[in-house]
């Protein structure tokens, strides 16, 4: 990012939430880069920006769509051979789409294939022209979530049709041009409340700083993901960056700034219901996943890097079930549980509340504060038979039964709450070893300095102990329950005073090893689908060298790519798709932006980074028609995880809510959708309408204000690691809401006053921070006030405050199943909550 010429921070408050990451933005700025912050609030990030664009929360996609439209209409973009070469060689702009496809512009706000009764899409009509059968991976039925996973199109032998002139009305470029034609500066003014001249200033800055020798980077965080259209917002930015040639090049990209130490790692090696390690889809009983063969046939794309999926799956089964997994029994695939519905976070809350889920492990998460509709989340916890909380402080999720607002008020009495609660104190880094994967896929190891105090133990210890005890309890059980556990390899040697499992053994298992001799495999390419290798997470393969050195512990940095510091998956690459940093013939686009290039003399790719491309594949390689896997990717196609090797401007499969990004209003909004008045909300958004999770109608006069929730530098997520720490607690000691002087004046609210904010889910009180950093916006001729509220606070710890998530509702993006907390509507009044805990009157 320090190499960027322009940095657009949107959907993120980077200076506040990633202060050390912001060093690189400051470095770019010192070198003259333009810094742009697009955000409803003027924050500490805006303070260091050159341009601040205040927009209405929930309107980001209009702004991005208008940038797309501005770019494709721009004269310079149309004639600059850099953009045109990048577009034609590296994206699917020229690919033709089936003639059955209909755009939202044709159908009043929905794409072809929409089923209004089931609120989902059949994506068959979105596929490439000439492609046989349904799009693989989705199969005309919602299957796996698209979180982080690249799905594939094209059956073996299919050659998608192209029009290199980009004039065919069914080619991707023409489709997207038409789709975004109404995303004008005037629409930006109408939907976002941003004046056209300000929009144009941003658009020109981005265009000016995207070229053969210049790059623009976008940085986003959860203010893009936490919408019902979150995946599409990010997709729209990726689309824009592909048009501008800013992907795969130094100083470019779409950077996700993630908020937890290993939130990247916990999706790579997931604790997510729908994924197995390495973004392998979790077997699903409603799919053609009945046997291992079915699953592999269904999920293995014929072309691209993911063609190696069977080796990954079989090696994973070997890692899990060891000697019990044989070719004859399908490597115990039958023992791997199958999902059949949505068991993501919000669905789980409802399963608990409704009594289907009876036991819960809560390890380092605080749903009583951090869960959306936290009132409902606490009711869910109170309806469990048992709950195990592992944390360092007595967080709200452990203390809810005696200390929650509803208990303090007397609405709920502890003697009516059946939940058996175990609080087990956890060890922290420094008291245990292990690795984190940072936001750039860099795996780093933290070593152990001391033993943890008292009963504090690592999660690894807890799991090791629990697994051993359960194996004993199920000894002799020959049913599937017993076999599942008996087959599981679970004999980690223990070490040290606390008898933690030896993590070197776990890392070796994650890396993969040869079954015969237990030696670590050298990388992904060494994995086999015949049971001769075992591997816990294929994309991490290579993290341990064959002599057992853990590269997450490598600590040799330098001022370039620092390939000797940690291990970046896959194969230690720092920039993904970095083949795109060279032109189609393999030469660097420019000296200034040199990163990876083709060394014709030696016949290999080389550069500052590990090339994300087959090392010896010549830029002029053209695949034979029957090629499979990586051999099917042409030498000028950098996006090797996609079946066609191209960056997708149009998502022919893999998304549940449309192949092109489209603006829809949040589930709760004060204004209509100016594009599609008949289709205000995302037609595929996942909602949970029920009495304990009621939504506000569009424009409900009782809830006129837009609420957005966010974090502060001084605290961390739901507060378990910050509100109890005195040095952090004193810096932001109490919950507050931020509102503009204009809105404060309307309610007679003075700075520091108590105010009550409420929704149909709940009401909270907080102190008012009246500041011109928030401002009313004029949206579609209407004044829209926005209120901001940090969501860190709760009833425990030193720094306390009303729980912002008592206000939010369960509602999700259909792709990622991430909730909507960045834009909903609320009521505001001066004064504290009344005794009944009622917010609005």
């Amino acid at each position, binding site marked *: 990012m320090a190499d960027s010429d322009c940095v657009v921070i949107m959907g993120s408050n980077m200076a506040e939430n990633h202060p050390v990451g912001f060093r690189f933005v400051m470095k770019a700025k010192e070198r003259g880069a333009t810094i742009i912050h697009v955000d409803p609030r003027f924050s500490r990030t805006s303070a260091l920006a050159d341009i601040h664009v*205040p927009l209405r929360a929930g309107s980001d996609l209009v702004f991005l769509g208008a940038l797309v439209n501005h770019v494709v209409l721009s004269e310079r973009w149309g004639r600059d051979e850099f953009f045109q070469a990048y577009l034609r060689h590296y994206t699917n702009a020229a690919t033709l789409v089936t003639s059955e496809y209909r755009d939202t512009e044709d159908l009043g706000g929905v794409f072809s294939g929409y089923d209004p009764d089931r609120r989902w899409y059949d994506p068959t009509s979105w596929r490439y022209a000439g492609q046989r059968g349904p799009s693989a991976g989705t199969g005309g039925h919602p299957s796996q979530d698209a979180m982080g996973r690249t799905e594939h199109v094209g059956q073996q032998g299919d050659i998608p049709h192209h029009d290199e002139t980009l004039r065919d009305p069914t080619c991707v470029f023409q489709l997207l041009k038409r789709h975004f034609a109404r995303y004008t500066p005037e629409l930006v003014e109408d939907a976002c409340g941003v004046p056209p001249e300000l929009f144009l200033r941003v658009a020109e800055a981005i265009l000016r700083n995207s070229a053969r020798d210049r790059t623009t980077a976008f940085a986003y965080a959860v203010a893009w993901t936490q919408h019902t259209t979150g995946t599409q917002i990010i997709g729209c930015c990726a689309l824009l960056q592909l048009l501008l040639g800013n992907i795969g090049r130094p100083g470019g990209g779409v950077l996700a700034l993630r908020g937890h130490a290993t939130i990247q790692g916990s999706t790579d090696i997931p604790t997510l219901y729908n994924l197995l390690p390495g973004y392998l889809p979790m077997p699903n009983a409603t799919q053609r996943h009945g046997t291992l063969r079915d699953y592999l046939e269904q999920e293995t794309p014929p072309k691209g890097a993911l063609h190696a999926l069977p080796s990954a799956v079989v090696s994973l089964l070997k890692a899990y079930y060891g000697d019990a997994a044989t070719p004859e029994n399908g490597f115990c695939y039958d023992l791997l549980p199958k999902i059949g519905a949505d068991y993501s976070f919000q669905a789980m809350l409802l399963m608990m509340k409704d009594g289907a889920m009876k036991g819960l492990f809560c390890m380092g998460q605080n749903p009583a504060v951090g869960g959306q509709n936290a009132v409902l989340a606490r009711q869910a916890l109170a309806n469990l038979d048992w709950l195990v909380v592992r944390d360092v402080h007595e967080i709200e999720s452990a203390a809810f039964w005696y200390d929650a607002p509803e208990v303090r008020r007397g609405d709920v009495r502890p003697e009516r709450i059946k939940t058996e609660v175990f609080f087990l104190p956890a060890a922290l880094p420094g008291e245990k070893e292990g690795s984190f994967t940072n936001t750039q896929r860099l795996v780093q190891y933290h070593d152990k300095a001391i033993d943890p105090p008292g009963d504090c133990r690592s999660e690894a210890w807890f799991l090791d102990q629990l697994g051993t005890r359960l194996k004993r309890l199920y000894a002799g059980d020959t049913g599937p329950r017993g076999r599942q556990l008996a087959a599981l390899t679970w004999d980690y040697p223990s070490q040290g005073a606390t008898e933690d499992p030896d993590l070197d053994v776990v890392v070796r298992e994650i890396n993969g090893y040869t079954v015969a001799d237990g030696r670590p495999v050298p990388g992904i390419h060494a994995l086999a689908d015949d049971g001769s290798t075992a591997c816990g997470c294929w994309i991490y393969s290579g993290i341990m060298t064959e002599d057992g050195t853990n590269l997450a512990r490598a600590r040799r940095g330098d001022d370039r790519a620092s390939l000797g510091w940690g291990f970046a998956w896959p194969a230690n690459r720092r920039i993904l798709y970095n083949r795109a940093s060279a032109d189609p013939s393999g030469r660097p686009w420019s000296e200034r932006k040199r990163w990876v290039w083709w060394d014709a003399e030696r016949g290999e790719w080389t550069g500052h980074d590990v090339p994300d491309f087959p090392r010896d594949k010549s830029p002029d390689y053209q695949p034979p028609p029957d090629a499979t896997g990586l051999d099917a990717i042409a030498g000028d196609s950098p996006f090797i995880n996609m079946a066609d090797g191209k960056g997708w401007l149009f998502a022919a499969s893999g998304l549940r809510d449309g192949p092109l990004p489209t603006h829809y209003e949040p589930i709760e909004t004060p204004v209509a959708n100016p594009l599609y008045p008949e289709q205000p909300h995302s037609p595929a958004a996942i909602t949970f309408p029920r009495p304990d999770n009621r939504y506000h109608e569009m424009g409900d006069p009782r809830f006129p204000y837009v609420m957005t929730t966010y974090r502060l530098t001084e605290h961390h997520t739901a507060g378990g690691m910050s509100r109890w720490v005195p040095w952090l607690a004193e*810096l932001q000691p109490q919950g507050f809401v931020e509102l503009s002087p204009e809105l404060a004046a309307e309610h007679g609210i003075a700075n520091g006053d108590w105010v009550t904010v409420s929704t149909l889910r709940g009401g909270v009180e907080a102190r008012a921070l009246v500041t011109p950093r928030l401002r009313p916006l004029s949206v579609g001729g209407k004044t829209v006030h926005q209120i901001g509220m940090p969501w860190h606070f709760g009833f425990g710890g030193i720094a306390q405050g009303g729980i912002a998530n008592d206000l939010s509702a369960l509602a999700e993006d259909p792709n990622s199943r991430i909730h909507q907390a960045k834009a909903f509507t609320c009521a505001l009044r001066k004064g504290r909550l009344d005794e009944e805990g009622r917010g609005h009157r």
Partner: protein
Amino acid sequence: MSADGSAAPSHAAGTTGARPGAVGFLTDTTLCIGCKACEVACKQWNGLPMDDVGFTGFSYDNTVDLGATTWRHVAFVERAGDEAGVRATALAPFQSAWLMMSDVCKHCVHAGCLEACPTGAIIRTEFDTVVIQQDVCNGCGYCIPACPFGVPQLSATDRKAHKCTLCYDRLRDDLEPACAKACPTDSIQFGLIAELMPRATERVAALRERGVDGAYVYGDRAVGGTHGIDGLNAFFVLTAPPETYNLPAAPELPQDKTLPAFLSTAVAALGLCLAAVAALRGRR
């Protein structure tokens, strides 16, 4: 140089009375993101307890001021809207609409606190920094009014005066002070004054070139130059008048206005001597 940059540079601009070999801080507010890492790193290293100020409503500032247990303090000045409530979207290149400044003890070249201290607790160290020796301080509090910046304060716990030591213990082991080390954007820089002061003046020139007309160094000889402070060993690059950050525009040593402490002590001592002499004579 005056705060608004309109006056001609004074002859003292960019110079300091610091001794050769003196170390200190350059706090460049144009790089500050208001994260408060300096406050925490300081408390962590020096083992200082949390203040219990509570929610102030004063922007994001909930520690309010330097004190006995807060030796780095980040001030927040909101200027996002003008008096009519109009907010700019095009911003000056560095920090204009929300000023943040990490304040600290200035380690004055001529330190009022040191001069006022009657017990010899306050010393000028081998690094040319000003340190209150806790095993000598008796909590008389004379240093408190003597500081033109209001830095030293008495602790309610041990009733002694406390302030930034510029991490004297770390300097003894060649470690940079905790705040400067932690600062993610290098807004706080530690080093030899002889290197930091030219860096500050170069920075001001570069900022002015980039359109930050109001940038200036606060803490060279021009500050308090006529009043004998002769420069601060912790100085700042600011972009608004000092008062905006709650800093005195023309800090004065109280000793300049009243009888210097040394003199009053000397006079008192002389009086005692005379009295003693008189008494001795009287015995004869």
